[in-house]
């Protein structure tokens, strides 16, 4: 019996027993649904990390000199963490040194951030993400203003009490008002608003538009970094090729300044988008492993259900098998008929599961900050998996059916 005939037969069988087929499909459908949803979300997160997060938070060709990594998976041990917090801090006074070390054309900025209470007469006090920055911060971050302007070099050097605010800050503290030229009080100190940033959106549900950015030399830095240290020094190399060179130079000057012996390992960290993404890869592996366990159980249960239903089908259709054998069906024809039926069933289950999984993934990404991206390979994988589950769980019942003796099978009504 040709393959296509077996498929047609299987579809006819499924059509005749709609309800039973539906329940047979359920396990595979649920397994595949969660599989697709998990893969979509993991994929969505990693593509988000690569395309948006890395660029938005860390920038291209950019590294940040820090005391220890911020975006990694944290200290690997208690001891490492203790070692990290004993490290010397990065100070604003390190800036000239770094500036001299990096290749010509690099951009440099200090970064210093803290959540501080802000207020105006038009709104209740609320926390904003206050930044004290200088140098080429806006250029590195690719921030531009929607209205107003950024600081001048002079204002930055002098530490003028001025602020560039994010979209949400503008809307909250200055409802139906033009914030430009008005004062925003942060920790009681008034800063004149000179610009409003273009809307940045959010990363994992955290808004990037709740910022208030003031010059480093303004009073702001006393609150963001009371000890005179900074969160980090950001360096953007002019080209990707010069990035490594820049990092090496900075490493040398920092080690020189700290009088480190060659045997000592760095007591600072240079964070790049690559180092943050390496962490993401790790996270992805963990999520995929953990996230596949559940669907896998679903698929196994689905397979067992199919096996069970197929065994019942073999018992119910013994007479039919006898008829077919009496008409010349060979062992392999019957085997194929039942295998194809099991595989068709579970492939259909997988297809329904794929559709539901995509819907679920989209639903999750709409309801939560988790992004979702349906990977074409996951659809192929799920379809194949569905078929394989069907074939594997169909083998035993199909063998039983194929091995029946024609006379004995015919006698069974």
């Amino acid at each position, binding site marked *: *019996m*040709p393959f296509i*005939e077996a498929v047609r037969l299987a579809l006819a069988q499924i059509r*005749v027993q709609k309800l039973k087929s539906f329940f047979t499909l359920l396990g595979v459908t649920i397994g595949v649904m969660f599989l697709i949803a998990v893969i979509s979300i993991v994929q969505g997160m990693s593509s988000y990390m690569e395309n948006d997060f890395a660029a938005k938070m860390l920038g291209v060709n950019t590294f940040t000199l820090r005391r220890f990594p911020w975006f990694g998976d944290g200290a690997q041990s208690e001891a490492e963490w203790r070692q990290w917090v004993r490290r010397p801090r990065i100070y604003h006074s390190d800036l000239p040194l770094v500036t001299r070390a990096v290749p010509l054309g690099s951009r440099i900025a200090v970064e210093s951030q803290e959540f501080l209470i802000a207020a105006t007469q038009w709104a209740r006090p609320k926390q904003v993400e206050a930044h004290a920055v200088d140098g080429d911060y806006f250029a590195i971050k690719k921030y531009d203003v929607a209205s107003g302007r950024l600081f001048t070099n002079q204002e930055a050097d002098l530490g003028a009490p001025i602020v560039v605010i994010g979209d949400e800050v503008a809307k909250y503290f200055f409802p139906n008002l033009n914030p430009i030229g008005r004062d925003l009080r942060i920790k009681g100190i008034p800063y004149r608003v000179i610009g409003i940033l273009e809307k940045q959106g959010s990363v994992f549900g955290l808004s990037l538009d709740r910022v208030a950015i003031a010059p480093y030399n303004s009073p702001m830095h006393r609150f963001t970094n009371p000890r005179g240290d900074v969160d980090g020094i950001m360096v953007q190399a002019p080209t990707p090729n010069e990035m490594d060179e820049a990092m090496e130079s900075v490493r040398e000057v920092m080690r020189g300044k700290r009088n480190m012996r060659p045997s000592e390992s760095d007591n600072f960290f240079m964070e790049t988008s690559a180092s943050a993404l390496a962490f993401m890869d790790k996270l992805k592996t963990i999520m995929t492993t953990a996230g596949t366990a559940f669907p896998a159980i679903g698929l196994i249960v689905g397979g067992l259900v199919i096996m069970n239903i197929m065994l019942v089908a073999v018992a119910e259709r013994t*007479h*039919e098998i*006898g*008829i*077919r*054998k*009496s*008409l*010349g*069906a*060979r*062992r*392999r*024809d019957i085997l194929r008929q039942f295998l194809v039926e099991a595989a068709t069933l579970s492939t259909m289950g997988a297809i329904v599961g794929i559709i539901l999984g995509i819907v679920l993934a989209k639903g999750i990404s709409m309801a939560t900050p988790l992004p979702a991206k349906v990977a074409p390979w996951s659809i192929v994988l799920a379809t194949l998996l569905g078929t394989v589950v069907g074939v594997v769980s169909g083998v035993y019942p199909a063998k039983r059916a194929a091995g029946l003796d*024609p*006379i004995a099978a*015919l006698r069974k009504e």
Partner: protein
Amino acid sequence: MTSTTDEIPLSTTAERQAVTNGGVAPEKDWVIVTRGLKREYDMGGEIVRALRGVDVAIRRNEYVAIMGPSGSGKSTLMNLIGCLDTPNAGEYWLNGMLVSGMHEDELARVRNKEIGFVFQTFNLLPRASALHNVELPLVYAGVPGDERRKRATEALTRVKLGDRIHHRPNELSGGQRQRVAIARALVNTPAILLADEPTGNLDSATSEEIMGVFEGLASEGQTVIMVTHEPDIAAHARRVIVLKDGMIESDDRRENFRAKIHSTGGASKIGI
């Protein structure tokens, strides 16, 4: 395994010869030759000897009836001839091929190509149309869909069911169901048409009608072997083999059988 020749009640010396040459392929004329065919069932230690050495030789185009009391081994013999079952001992030659000792797949091929089997209980697929039922042997023969439908329709037309091809078995009368089964048995142009009590589930009028179909086929040259309990049905055949206790009791040409019926007072039933 060879039995003593004089004990075997065969019609002709030719037949006697055909069944005694153990291990040698019979001449081309013989479509069926069995030699010392035995079939035993092990019923939990107790051996039931359903066939105890059956020698039969049947020529192409013969129309043979098999009779005998219940439990005499008629169905067992038919199943062996139909390759649905395999003997414990003895030879079975079909169309010059030694069927006994064939592998499972070869048997399936023989069932598909050489044998058309009509059962007392029709054995149609209940959920499939008459057409699909008749197509089945062609499906397993690997005949493509278009030709399959054409040939199945022809076979159904031949048994006068050309206007019922899309009906399911439960939408057909008993006689019509049996016609579908006959069409199915014939669709692959088998060497032999076997029927095990084909009218056993039918009333007498319908039985006559079905017998008419077999009669017609036989007169067209189809080899037919039929099991029946009814002497008047057996009377349609040109040769009657009677089984008893797993052995052949008699094997007679029609004329002899008729005479026998007369002598036992069964003639009134046959009406000849």
